[in-house]
């Protein structure tokens, strides 16, 4: 089941690291990096049902709020 309650142990630091990781990249390079990152995180999750929930939430977040 997808975790939607806070699960970061250092949310501000993690977010800052994400932004910093993109510094100096062109938009195309950033997109490519994001694609690699998504694949790496999907593999970390592993469970197909959780991945499906995450994708549905990402796609429909506006409709849900």
């Amino acid at each position, binding site marked *: 089941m997808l975790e939607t309650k806070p699960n970061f142990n250092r949310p501000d630091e993690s977010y800052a690291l994400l932004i910093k990781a993109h510094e100096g990249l062109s938009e195309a390079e950033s997109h490519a990096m994001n694609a*690699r990152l*998504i*694949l790496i995180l999907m*593999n970390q999750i592993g469970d197909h049902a959780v991945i499906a929930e995450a994708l549905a939430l990402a796609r429909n977040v506006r409709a849900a709020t």
Partner: protein
Amino acid sequence: MRTPVTERYPLAFRLYPYVKSPDQTAVTPIRHKVVVAGGGPVGLATALDLGLRGVPVLVCDDQEGVGLGSRAICFAKRTLEICDRLGAGVSMLAKGVQWNIGKVFHDNRLLYEFNLLPEDGHAFPAFINLQQPLFEKFLHEAIVKAQSQGAPIEIRGSNRIDAVVRHEDHVTIDVMTPDGPYVLEADWLVACDGARSPIRSMLGHGFDGRVFEDNFLIADVKMKANFPTERWFWFEPHFKSGDSALLHKQPDDIWRIDFQLGWNIDRQKELKPENIRARVSAMLGPDVDYELDWCSIYTFQCRRMEKFRHGPVLFAGDSAHQVSPFGARGANSGVQDADNLGWKLALVVQGLAPDTLLDSYDSERVYGADENIANSTRATDFITPKSAISKLFRDAVLQLAETVPFARTVVNSGRLSMPCTYDGSPLNGPDVASFPARTRPGSPCPDAPIGADWLLRLLGGNFTLLAIDADVPTTFSACGIPLSVLSVSGRDNKALCERYLGNATSAVYLIRPDQHVAARFEHFDEEVVAAAVGRAIAKDVVDA
């Protein structure tokens, strides 16, 4: 005025020249039990299976033999096992090029390799490569041999089916020959007449699915080369001959090369020998001598008919479903259709099973077709990404795959044909959950060595009671069907134990004539097994 029968394509082998049949001068149309339309791999396998079961079958083909051109080349283990049951497996294996290993490259770098048969204890390899005309010729040789032993199979060349009218319990067929038209009747018609199936059109059935916007060039070349006997696939190859490329070895020094050309191409220009040679030479290097053997440009589609059974008309092979070539799921799934249909149609014709058994041909093979279409569509979306974002992810996977192991599992150059397990089939009977999952009801039986022989050879093509270190009667009949009884031991047979026993010490399996598991039990119980046989032939055992 009807058009005469013409040769639509050049032949590799003229196997069944036209001979005038007495049917053509009969006053009233002659009724046949089963007519098979089309003498390709699926039509020949269907006719052979029926004939070996003693069911009279007539094959009508509008040509007089096997067409030229390699076409399908990869024949899977399950296909070879089926052909072995039909008497053609040994000659196919002897001629074919055996392979188990695939390698996937990006640009000039090896991403990973895979072994399609990482375990021992199988009579047949994961795949052989064999030109389609040779595959058909071996099936035809097995038919000739079966005929000489009394199998009631007839093949009529230059017999083109021009019209089919469906009735409640039979069909009327208009046939054109070099001597003019005649009319036939058949209790059952099996349409194995290919992706453009004229019979499907005559009966007005749809064939819907997806078209993929890409062109692929096949260049079969003849050369002496020392590439290993493996499937090599390149994404964005360094030699720039296409967006992807594939290399495969066939018998007689023929090599299959595929290049992905993109959507907006000039077919005539790309098919000019000098343009094909430019691509091939860039791939092989300047010093390699070769001849072009057979070339073709193809596009492809993934689609199927909604139903494969329409009363007395059954569709099998490409006429019923079509996939992209990535994964070798076309001809292989067609032979599985024949395997699934043969015994069912035989039991119905012989009056041993209700005709509703044929509805399970529809449900099981539609299930198989959907699995093949899903696999083939996913491979195609990876090889030919259809949007910018799809390409972005594809490229990210390829980039990661070089150094990060998990990404290699997502790289998809075709998931190669595996037989499907008919989970949820109405024919499946009782299971024992603690037995191995791979032999659950609906599964194709995995092979295993039995002494100097092989399990699948010993199973043959009848309903079989397979007893592994279990007590069963030496003869057993149910629903009017005499079963074969095969008693084997798991002692000192690791493969058999792993595949059929798991942690159990004994087991009883009910195996269908197509060598799929129908049911399995801890012990033999006459009533329980008889009920499972009834279920496997769509017959309520109460009225058996």
